[in-house]
């Protein structure tokens, strides 16, 4: 069996999750503080991929990435970058697609922390960044783990968007979910079953790991 779709899927999920962690956690922090109409709009946009059909996202990304006009043309002409049918394009799409899974849990966890925690840290002369890094984040570890695992797992499960903008290129954009679809179309049910079973096992283990970890964390004094 050709394992490259599995590796590609894991790579896509890994890169996407890492990027989302770097971008998403500070972003969630910003969203968690204060309320303004602007923040509500931003949060709504970030949450949209949760409810939008992947085909809608795929269709707009296909248009946006097209080297014939708009953003795609600018990227193509200025930097010779073509996002459609490429791995970086899939990463960008996945970041958008899985964003709510990173931001959501982290934001709610930060909002539920008692305000005194940050205030005490400021009183002791710590900066906003130090407080965030050394006081707030360590206190929301279970939520961080949930966010990371969900983002990773959700990217593994990505299908509709990749089907529209991927182009099914072996080793570049043929991820496992597409390989399953392909195998079914070919009526090669044995391969479809192999890929499916691997995806099933990986996601099952990940979800179990989160449950076990969160249960253990709940017993800790800070929980």
């Amino acid at each position, binding site marked *: 069996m050709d394992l490259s779709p599995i590796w590609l899927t894991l790579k896509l999920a890994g890169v996407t999750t890492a990027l989302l962690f770097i971008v998403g956690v500070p972003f969630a922090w910003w969203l968690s503080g204060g309320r303004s109409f602007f923040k509500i709009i931003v949060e709504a946009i970030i949450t949209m991929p949760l409810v939008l059909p992947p085909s809608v996202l795929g269709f707009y990304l296909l248009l946006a990435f097209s080297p014939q006009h708009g953003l795609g043309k600018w990227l193509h002409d200025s930097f010779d970058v073509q996002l459609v049918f490429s791995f970086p394009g899939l990463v960008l799409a996945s970041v958008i697609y899985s964003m709510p899974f990173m931001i959501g849990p982290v934001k709610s966890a930060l909002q539920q922390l008692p305000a005194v925690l940050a205030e005490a840290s400021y009183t002791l002369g710590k900066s906003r960044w130090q407080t965030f890094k050394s006081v707030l984040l360590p206190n929301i570890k279970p939520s961080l783990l949930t966010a990371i695992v969900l983002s990773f797992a959700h990217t593994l499960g990505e299908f509709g968007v990749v089907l529209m903008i991927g*182009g099914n290129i072996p080793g570049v954009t043929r991820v496992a979910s597409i390989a399953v679809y392909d195998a079914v179309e070919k009526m090669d049910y044995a391969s479809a079953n192999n890929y499916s079973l691997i995806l099933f096992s990986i996601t099952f283990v990940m979800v179990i790991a989160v449950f076990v970890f969160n249960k253990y964390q709940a017993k800790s004094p800070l929980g």
Partner: protein
Amino acid sequence: MVHLPSFAQNVRVAAAANLQSVIDVLQKDFKKKTGISIEPVVGSSGKLVAQISNGAPFDVFLSADMSFPETLYKGGFAAKQPVVYASGSLIICSSQNIGFENWERLLLTARIKKIAIANPAIAPYGKATEEVLKYKGILDEVKFKTVYGESISQVNTYITTGVVDVGFTTQSLVKDAGSKTDLYYKVIAPKYYKPILQGMVLLKHGVNNPGAERFYQYILSPAAKSIFASYGYRIQ
């Protein structure tokens, strides 16, 4: 007692993706001639066959090749042996006027970054494209530029939205989409690929539906053949 007018039953037709545009015309013409409505479901032949073998309630299947209808017949899903209703015509097509006089050379240049073809493992037009590229001796050289559509419809999307520079598709695309977008194309000479014989079967599900049999006969009639011919299909 209420007397109900006897409406003919609708006919569900599973149609290969390359028939996307021509099926609408056939549907209207058939309705005009017989008053019977068709419900077409268009998709890649492979997917439709998988659905039919798992009990999808289709009456007639119009495939993009002969092997899929053959599979259904052997599996006991079809009432009759497959018949050829048309053969497909392959074109090279682009949304830009790039000049196709010497297209095999053009594909090798840096000017062409992405080439769309239908997945050769499941789509007959994709298989024909590979045969052409192999015959021209450039199959391996253009592989890194190739993107695969899950069906010929997706290849058409890639061409018309301009995300690829060129694509290999069915000639019926230009008849239909050509009116909405500017498309430039060249017909690939049939000697470079095995004929894309497209087969039809009357499915078991359609046996008790008189409309299904009439549609089956209609597809083989001169009226339907001339519609197919106007969309670039070759007719025996």
